[in-house]
């Protein structure tokens, strides 16, 4: 299955936000869309998700596909416990008897089974985002769209949530699109990094990161410097 966007343009009144954006999303890989805050990354994601209309261009492969989502905020329902929050999005998609088994299986996999009946108010910010990511992975979809999911987390929680994402990614194969402004996040998680330029937003560089993902910290920090250099030149 091929997923992508081709020649996407978007303006708000006279202000051009997205200028001829074309990106291919490789199946079962993670594509990181990297750019400074306010360049229109979320707008691009919203166009892909069908929340915002594009002016011109094509969305390829997403039409009939159901997608999972992780947002900047956890978006958990306060009056539902962890189990009910997850099963809320699964009903009508998976048989009722299977839902609980599935939730148990995944909670056990990520060592969160003791939190099954916890309400969101009893969970820390990091824990809430872990449940949000778990919900996205359990949901039967082939695409996972994530909009700066680690933005509101402190450094320790961020590391824990990133590890959870990596673990789930090995178990459940999904084509992931991750929007971020954080270069380190992009290098740690992205098989492909798409760097966006600033106002109007264009695709500046596409970096194949799959060979560097498993490499040592020295090579990663070299790449980080290169990306940061490119981003500074864009501003």
């Amino acid at each position, binding site marked *: 299955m091929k997923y992508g966007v081709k020649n996407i343009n978007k303006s708000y009144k006279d202000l051009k936000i997205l200028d001829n954006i074309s990106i291919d999303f490789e199946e079962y890989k993670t594509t990181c869309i990297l750019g400074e805050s306010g360049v229109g990354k979320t707008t691009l994601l919203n166009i892909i*998700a069908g929340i915002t209309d594009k002016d011109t261009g094509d969305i390829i492969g997403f039409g009939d596909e159901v*997608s999972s*989502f992780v947002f900047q905020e956890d*978006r958990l*329902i306060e*009056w539902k416990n962890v189990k009910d929050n997850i099963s809320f999005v699964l*009903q009508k998609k998976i048989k009722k008897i299977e839902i609980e088994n599935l939730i148990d299986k995944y909670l056990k996999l990520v060592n969160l089974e003791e939190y099954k009946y916890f309400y969101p108010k009893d969970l820390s910010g990091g824990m809430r985002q872990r449940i949000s990511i778990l919900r996205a992975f359990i949901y039967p979809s082939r695409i996972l769209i994530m909009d700066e999911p680690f933005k509101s987390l402190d450094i320790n929680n961020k590391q824990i949530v990133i590890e959870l994402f990596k673990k789930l990614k090995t178990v459940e194969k999904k084509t992931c699109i991750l929007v971020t402004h954080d270069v380190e996040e992009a290098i740690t998680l992205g098989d492909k990094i798409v760097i966006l330029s600033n106002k109007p937003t264009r695709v500046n560089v596409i970096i194949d990161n799959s060979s560097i993902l498993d490499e040592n910290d020295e090579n990663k920090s070299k790449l980080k410097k290169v990306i940061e250099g490119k981003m500074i030149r864009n501003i």
Partner: protein
Amino acid sequence: MKSYILKNRKLSIISKIYLIIIWILLSQTINNDVIVPSIKSTFISMIELIKDPGFLNIISSTILRTLLGFLISLFLAIILGILSSISKIVHNLMQPILKFLNSVPTIAIIVLALIWLNNEIVPIFVGFLMVFPVLYETVLQSILNIDKNIIQMAYLYRVNKIEIIKNIYIPNIFYNLSTIFNSALGINLKMVIAGEVLAQPKYSIGSKIQLERMYLNTSGVFAWIIIILFISAMFDYMVKALRYLFGINKWK
């Protein structure tokens, strides 16, 4: 958290003792049972009221009127609140009615109600006048101010509309209503009794208070006030039980 609750309880008990001390001091200083009756005479009056064969009939009639009026207000507030949130026509039709109820003195409407309505219905109507606008606004605001991010999440995960209404909108409405149930029921009880004082239905606390006033039996009025406080406390426990039953305390 526990010590905070205990502190509150302590303060509540202290304030009750404080009120009783003021009452004792006032009744001893004035020394006139018609102006401020003593605790003893109030207690004797209360025993007499309770021994009266019609006592249960009187309080159950007032409680029934209060609950019936409250349920009618609640039902109409939910229906009209929902309709107002989805229809601009209903919303705009409701605005002048609410404006009228909020700005015209309640006593003026009560006088009209006394002319137009049966004296059994007037107390219910008076309670409705006060409580309905509060409940209606709560329902409307619960729908309009719902967390849009949660709704968007549900749509993106392709949860159908009925499930969204059942799992997000309705619990949010009932949670917000539950936070004002105590005060709304309290106001309703007070207004129903005020309506009873004016309309004089056959069995009612309000008619009995009016009767005690006519005989200048102030200890009888005080005794009824204490009984009303007990009924009000019973409503408080009822609302707490409902919150417990619906599991609201677990997540808030």
